């Protein structure tokens, strides 16, 4: 049954992909991209990657779509027909695709439990991490501890994106921006937002601190947190939201998250361990791991939430 769902979803993804190639209206393309992202997120659930599914849905169908629509609104909706015949690109793509398909011929089968990818490093993660780290969600323990350095890099990447958007778009709080002021009469939305805002924040906290036991963690929680504030900004206007969380505060928070992460690493160095060696943080190695993971997830959450808001503010406060 799972295989059937898998195949149907892949088929739908293909249809969506071809439709994106053919469609001329950029807004339409954007909505299809959002659907593409949602479909791939459901595919991730089928393929057992629950954490990835959570992130992909929040990123692809959420933030990325909003940014794309904002860009179309700031630019133009129609796509001109290309002047030159796209023969060369087609050839390049065919060649690349053929090379990849040639490469699949010696691959282990899809889902083969004996494939080398599952037998070596990953296998020992599954067996040893409950003992070494004591966190049931293996994805969290690999992400935060075994490969914690990658995650530091990831936080830095998203921080770089914030710096880039600030440099390119900046904020403009005054004047008519694409997120307009005429919101006063929107009763339904305001009631709903008032009802939902605290619930979303509560839920974000749950995802943040429940990441050890279920799907979730700092990254996903950060996006949900930002979503809550975006809802608030939608209902009460960008100005009100910016009074609630001023842009300057966001900058500080974005920087603080990265610094918390790096500080945990440096602290473990000072306590006599290697960089990001959490077990020296507490007397008991397992407790140290827990503490380290908690702290860096907090850092990730803070940076991600503030970066998402910086990017959102940057796009929607741009003058038309």
């Amino acid at each position, binding site marked *: *049954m*799972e295989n059937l*769902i898998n195949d*149907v*979803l892949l088929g*739908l993804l293909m*249809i*969506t992909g071809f*439709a994106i190639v053919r*469609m001329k*209206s950029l*807004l*339409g393309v*954007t*909505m*299809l991209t*959002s*659907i593409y992202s*949602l*479909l791939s*997120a*459901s595919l991730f*659930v*089928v393929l057992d990657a*629950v954490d990835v*599914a*959570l992130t992909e*849905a*929040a990123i692809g*169908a*959420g933030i990325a*779509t*909003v940014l794309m*629509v*904002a860009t*179309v*609104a700031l630019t133009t909706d129609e796509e001109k027909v290309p002047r030159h015949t796209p023969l060369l690109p087609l050839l390049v793509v065919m060649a690349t695709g053929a090379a990849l398909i040639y490469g699949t011929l010696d691959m282990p089968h899809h889902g083969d439990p004996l494939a080398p990818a599952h037998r070596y490093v990953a296998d020992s993660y599954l067996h040893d991490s409950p003992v070494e780290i004591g966190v049931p969600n293996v994805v969290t323990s690999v992400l935060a501890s075994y490969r914690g350095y990658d995650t530091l890099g990831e936080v830095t990447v998203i921080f770089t994106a914030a710096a880039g958007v600030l440099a390119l778009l900046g904020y403009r709080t005054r004047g008519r921006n*694409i*997120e*307009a002021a*005429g*919101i*006063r*009469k*929107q009763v339904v*939305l305001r009631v709903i937002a008032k009802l939902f805002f605290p619930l979303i924040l509560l*839920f974000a906290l749950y*995802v943040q601190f*429940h990441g050890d036991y*279920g*799907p*979730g963690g700092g990254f*996903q929680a950060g996006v*949900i947190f930002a*979503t809550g504030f*975006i*809802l608030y900004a*939608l209902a009460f206007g960008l100005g009100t939201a910016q009074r609630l969380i001023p842009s300057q505060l966001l900058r500080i928070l974005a920087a603080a998250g990265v610094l918390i992460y790096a500080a945990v690493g440096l602290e473990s160095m000072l306590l006599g361990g290697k960089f990001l060696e959490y077990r020296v943080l507490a007397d008991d190695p397992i407790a140290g791991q827990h503490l380290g993971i908690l702290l860096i997830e907090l850092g990730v959450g803070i940076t991600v939430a503030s970066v998402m808001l910086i990017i959102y503010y940057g*796009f*929607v406060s741009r003058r038309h």
Partner: protein
Amino acid sequence: MFIAVSSVILIAIAVGLVRAIRGPSLYDRVLAANMIGTLTVLMVAILGFMTGRPEFLDIALVYVLISFVSTLAVLRVHNPGAGTTASSVKGSGEQ
């Protein structure tokens, strides 16, 4: 039984996709995306039960929130005037 329900959901997603591709207006597409969002939520919930790990409902909850907020944001960002009051508009609907 779960199989029947998830097949229906898949069919409905396919239909939503057709609507999203055919359009014709942006609103049809947003509507289709919203519907696919709802259906995805249901499918994730059912998948959780099918695989015997219903605790993954967190994902479904996040989907609900994200698809809601992104629908609103798309409408607002694309069409800033929308959402003042509709009473003064003598809209003739489609066509």
